């Protein structure tokens, strides 16, 4: 539940006054209450674009970090895809040494302010946490991500830009500017290589700027990371679509690049392939979110990109993308927004916090239902979605119970807008224009364990390799490939 932020702060100040400087036994630590995340009031925030989760106060961060049992085996670390030394950073945070805490995180992660906000912590670092296990509730694990966010927000501006080694005379092209590319560019530049980043859009940041909405990840945080890249001398070329503005092979053969990193993401929206999907008022989540975020259509006084002003919206899907689309629709003034999802609430792949926030804001969840058909009026505009109900059967290969249709359960959901948010495949442009690249049946690039593709001198990472995945995995792959590229460049 959302509690008044000021109340949370006051309580934390009091509690910290009791805890500060005291030696704490594991039992004491188990007894410290988990710190709630201060958030905007649900009804208010459902109508504005401001960030929902407001962030801990210093005392809250110290209290939350003090809950950590400092386990010798640190199971949490194995849950983090980039193996941040979690107990060590929490130890610093508990003592109020936030800069040192950030230093520890930065050894492994370049984007803590972002990952602290968007990582699915409940299935990553917080899943194996001993504290959550001891309290028999994984939701009561140490809120690692929230502390990570706090130290990043509090100290990132105080950190000088990373040092850059002397020029090596080698040139690397980084294609795309999402988290995989940001990480690769930063690491390669620090090694002294000349790095040019090519981005198709007019703004760098990838999904972080066109997909994930302002209310979840403020653009200024992404802008700060991009600014750091500029400061250390990464040349960022926007409005440059590799494959069309220049072929990938030409970058190597004609433009003098010694190596290429491809981080072009999973930008091909999937559709349901059902009747009525081309009616007016049916959008892919990518289109809806791009119009709203990147093109700022929510600000209709100033923005010239149009967006639908919907009254009743159906969002098809249950992942982060679906939550973002549904909550954006509310903020654009929709009266009723329904998520239509085939499985149950527990099976939703979205981050738990986002599902809770969406519920609090009044998004309706129609679970165990799937859209069968979209119906239009005589103007070709969406009028309703026909849904079919499901029940859950046996567990399938992915360990989730697979939905089974219930014949005869058709129902009509009257809406004027449908947003299809059932995922993304990889964008085919680069493989079409670079036939030498080996891809799997989903169109993802095939790479070795270091990210090298089937083409010499070309590495890849992030969603273009993993399929739609997560920010932290993309960042981790970008770093791994950067290390391999650096080794390759040092040898030639």
């Amino acid at each position, binding site marked *: 539940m959302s509690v008044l932020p000021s109340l949370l702060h006051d309580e934390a100040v009091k509690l910290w006054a009791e805890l500060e400087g005291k030696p704490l036994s594991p039992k004491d630590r188990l007894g410290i209450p988990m710190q709630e995340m201060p958030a905007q009031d649900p009804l208010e925030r459902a109508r504005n674009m401001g960030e929902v989760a407001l962030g801990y106060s210093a005392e809250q961060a110290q209290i939350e970090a003090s809950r950590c049992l400092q386990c010798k085996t640190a199971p949490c670390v194995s849950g983090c895809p980039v193996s941040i030394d979690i107990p060590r950073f929490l130890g610093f945070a508990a003592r109020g040494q936030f800069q040192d805490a950030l230093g520890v995180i930065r050894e492994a992660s370049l984007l803590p302010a972002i990952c602290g906000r968007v990582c699915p912590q409940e299935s990553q670092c917080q899943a194996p946490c001993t504290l959550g296990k001891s309290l028999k509730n994984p939701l009561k694990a140490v809120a690692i991500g929230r502390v990570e966010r706090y130290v990043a927000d509090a100290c990132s501006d105080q950190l000088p830009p990373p040092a850059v080694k002397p020029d090596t005379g080698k040139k690397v092209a980084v294609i795309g500017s999402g988290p995989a590319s940001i990480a690769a560019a930063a690491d390669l530049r620090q090694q002294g290589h000349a790095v040019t980043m090519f981005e198709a859009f*007019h703004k760098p940041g990838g999904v972080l700027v066109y997909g994930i909405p302002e209310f979840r990840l403020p653009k200024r945080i992404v802008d700060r990371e991009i600014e750091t890249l500029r400061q250390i001398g990464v040349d960022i070329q926007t409005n*440059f679509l590799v494959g069309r*503005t220049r072929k990938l092979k030409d970058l190597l053969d004609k433009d003098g690049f010694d190596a290429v990193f491809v981080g072009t993401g999973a930008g*091909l929206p999937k559709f349901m392939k059902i009747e009525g999907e*081309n009616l*007016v008022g049916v*959008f892919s989540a990518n289109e809806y979110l791009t119009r709203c975020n990147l093109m*700022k259509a929510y600000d209709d006084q100033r923005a010239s990109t*149009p967006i639908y002003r919907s009254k009743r919206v159906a969002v098809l899907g249950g992942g982060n993308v679906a939550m973002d689309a549904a909550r954006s629709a509310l903020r654009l003034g929709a009266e009723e927004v329904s998520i239509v999802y085939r499985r149950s609430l527990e099976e939703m792949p979205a981050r738990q916090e986002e599902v809770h926030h969406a519920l609090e804001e009044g998004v309706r969840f129609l679970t165990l239902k799937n859209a069968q058909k979209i119906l239009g009026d005589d103007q070709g505009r969406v009028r309703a979605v026909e849904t079919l109900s499901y029940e859950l059967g046996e567990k399938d290969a992915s360990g989730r119970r697979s939905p089974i249709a219930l014949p005869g359960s058709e129902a009509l959901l009257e809406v004027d807008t449908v947003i299809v948010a059932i995922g993304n495949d990889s964008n085919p442009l680069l493989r079409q224009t670079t036939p030498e690249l080996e891809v799997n049946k989903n169109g993802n690039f095939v790479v070795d364990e270091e990210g090298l593709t089937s083409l010499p001198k070309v590495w890849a990472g992030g969603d273009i390799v993993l399929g739609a995945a997560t920010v932290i995995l993309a960042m981790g792959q970008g770093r791994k490939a950067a290390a391999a590229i650096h080794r390759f460049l040092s040898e030639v």
Partner: protein
Amino acid sequence: MNLIREKIQLSADVYQMVVEAPLVARERKAGQFIILQLDSSFAERIPLTIADADETAGTITLIFQAVGGTTRKLALKKPGESIENLLGPLGQPTHVQNFGRVVCVGGGIGVAPLHPIAQALKKAGNHVTIVLGARNKDLVILEKQMRALADELILCTDDGSAGRKDLVTVPLKELCQGPDKPDLVVAIGPPIMMKFCAETTRPFAVPTVCSLNSIMVDGTGMCGGCRVTVGGQMRFVCVDGPEFDAHLVDFDNMMLRSKAFRAKEQADHECFIQEYGVSQ
């Protein structure tokens, strides 16, 4: 930043601009387009065909009709000013080969995208007949340039103020019925014109290509906003097109979809009139 080198007014609301874009000029082929945005903060992204390019000068030529908010603002720009963002070349290039006899039909502003295609087809050795259509004499554009490259040119206006008083489909049908049945028809113009050109050539089984202008956002295949139904399949105009087999395109759905944002476009248009004190 892309500097505007030249601006010429071709007719009441059609403008030609030469813009610096060396990377686009280097790679572009006939049939491709760009997406531009007047400023990064609040402007929208709109597609325009590359009407011509000069690789040595590093420039491309755009020809556009001022129809709404963005194209009207673009029309007000002067040489020496810039377009903040310009991405391209986008889309699949036209498939150019020697087909034999080709008829190129251009309606309204569609003559602009048709010009580089007709040029390329002529260069490939085709016999090129051009049919130009416009509502009236003042709205005919690029007649001189088209005449210069065509083996034959037929001009039509709705009101008969220049050339024949006919819709373009009338001479198109005559050509299909005649002794030299075309081997290929390329039709570019308003969707309704392309639809009727497709219906005209269908009974004669003359392969017909059209270039679609659906609403776009990114132009890279990411948003799906430009999707159309072609032969019962979903295709993205920005990456699979813009040219498609006109006999397979669902024009009715495409026309509905291009009106999706009418209300906002209308409002912007009125804003523009208030701000700049001009009207049509």
